């Protein structure tokens, strides 16, 4: 039986940092130019002590409160995050307890960033279509802002915190999640990473030493590093062929797609991808101006308002694609039910 999305819900932390806030804090930053290029005017930032799992819990509780399914029917809880509460145990186990889901549930985490929602959908679909689960709760949650140095201009502008919860179930109708295409190139791992803090390179005086790059961005090895040029090159070389592969696998043409929902990196990146993949701009969902790049949650962040506003209708074909840290990428075709 094909899988479909029963419902989805996002959650943003209450704290908001606007571009004006960043400009006041850093008078030497040209916020006008950066705002125009990134298309991001504010981002939500988790409060001290508020973790990705807290955001995930809120998203799940709001979703379950809608009564779309009996929580007892949820057979698997899958959590995608790169901002875990602990090395161990899994956030999914903690979340099972917080949500008071049944104990006969499978629960596990996986560590991916901007491609994570696609991989989560593929895992959920596989569990349902193989008969191992009737309903899967897929969660994405990240607080990248915790990893960013206060003087790293570009990263502070780009990233925001957020979470999503998606119920995936067996479809009795035409809805389906199909034509998955995924890819990995670990050769790009160093271009988007937090170098220190894991077991390979524990925090130390050395890793805390700050450096400033040629563009004025300051960070230490304890902070998030992104080689913007390398990531940009990766994206413009990888995503257009990815979209073509999904279309080919699905046996549909670009013209048959109602909505293209790409990872919401920022306006500059999306504009480049729209141009290079020759996508119809009016069919590309965008949601970054008020939330920034929310990493694994960026695709549901774009889907949610489009659903609420009635732009996505039953029968619509959506092409989803995520790409980023790893390098990791993936996409699929979603027929809305």
């Amino acid at each position, binding site marked *: 039986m094909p899988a479909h999305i029963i419902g989805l819900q996002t959650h943003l932390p209450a704290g908001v940092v606007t571009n004006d806030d960043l400009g006041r804090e850093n008078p030497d930053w040209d916020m006008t*130019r*950066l705002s125009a*290029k990134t298309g991001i005017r504010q981002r939500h930032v988790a409060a001290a002590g508020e973790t990705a799992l807290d955001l995930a819990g809120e998203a799940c509780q709001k979703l379950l409160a809608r009564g779309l399914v009996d929580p007892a029917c949820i057979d698997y809880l899958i959590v995608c995050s790169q901002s875990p509460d602990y090395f161990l145990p899994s956030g999914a186990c903690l979340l099972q307890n917080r949500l008071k889901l049944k104990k006969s549930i499978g629960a596990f985490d996986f560590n991916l960033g901007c491609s994570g929602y696609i991989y989560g959908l593929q895992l959920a679909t596989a569990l349902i279509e193989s008969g191992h689960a009737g309903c899967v709760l897929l969660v994405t949650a990240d607080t990248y802002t915790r990893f960013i140095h206060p003087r790293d*201009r*570009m990263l502070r502008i780009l990233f925001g915190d957020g979470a999503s919860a998606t119920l995936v179930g067996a479809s009795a109708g035409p809805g389906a999640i199909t034509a998955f295409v995924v890819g990995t190139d670990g050769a790009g791992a160093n271009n988007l990473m937090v170098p220190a803090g894991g077991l390979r390179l524990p925090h130390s005086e050395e890793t805390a030493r700050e450096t400033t790059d*040629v*563009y*004025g*961005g300051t960070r230490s090895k304890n902070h998030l590093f992104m*080689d*913007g*040029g*390398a990531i*940009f*090159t990766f994206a*413009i*070389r990888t995503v257009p062929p990815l979209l073509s592969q999904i279309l080919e696998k699905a046996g549909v043409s670009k013209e048959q797609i109602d909505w293209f929902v790409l990872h919401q990196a920022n306006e*500059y990146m999306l504009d*480049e991808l729209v141009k290079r993949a020759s996508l119809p701009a009016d069919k590309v969902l965008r949601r970054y101006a008020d939330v920034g790049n929310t990493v694994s949650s960026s695709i549901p962040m774009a889907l949610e308002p489009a659903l609420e506003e009635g732009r996505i209708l039953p029968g619509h074909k959506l092409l989803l694609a995520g790409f980023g840290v790893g390098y990791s990428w993936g996409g699929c075709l979603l027929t809305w039910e």
Partner: protein
Amino acid sequence: MKTQELLNRLAVALGIPEGQLTLADSTDSIAEWDSIGHLNVLSELESHFGSVVEDNEIRRFTTIRQLVDGLRTRNLLED
């Protein structure tokens, strides 16, 4: 593509008037060549030459002349 056309295209990509970019310019002396300007340069080169020049190579160039010479060695420029 000839060198002058490349210089003009790079100038447009960086948001500076055509004709104002010269081979002698050092990349760090061009105010517009910031993190976003760098992406604009990458985009321009990728559009016209494909995936033959890597980002880390471009970042090693300290002058426009080095960039042009790098393209010439790949026979990507006509002069």
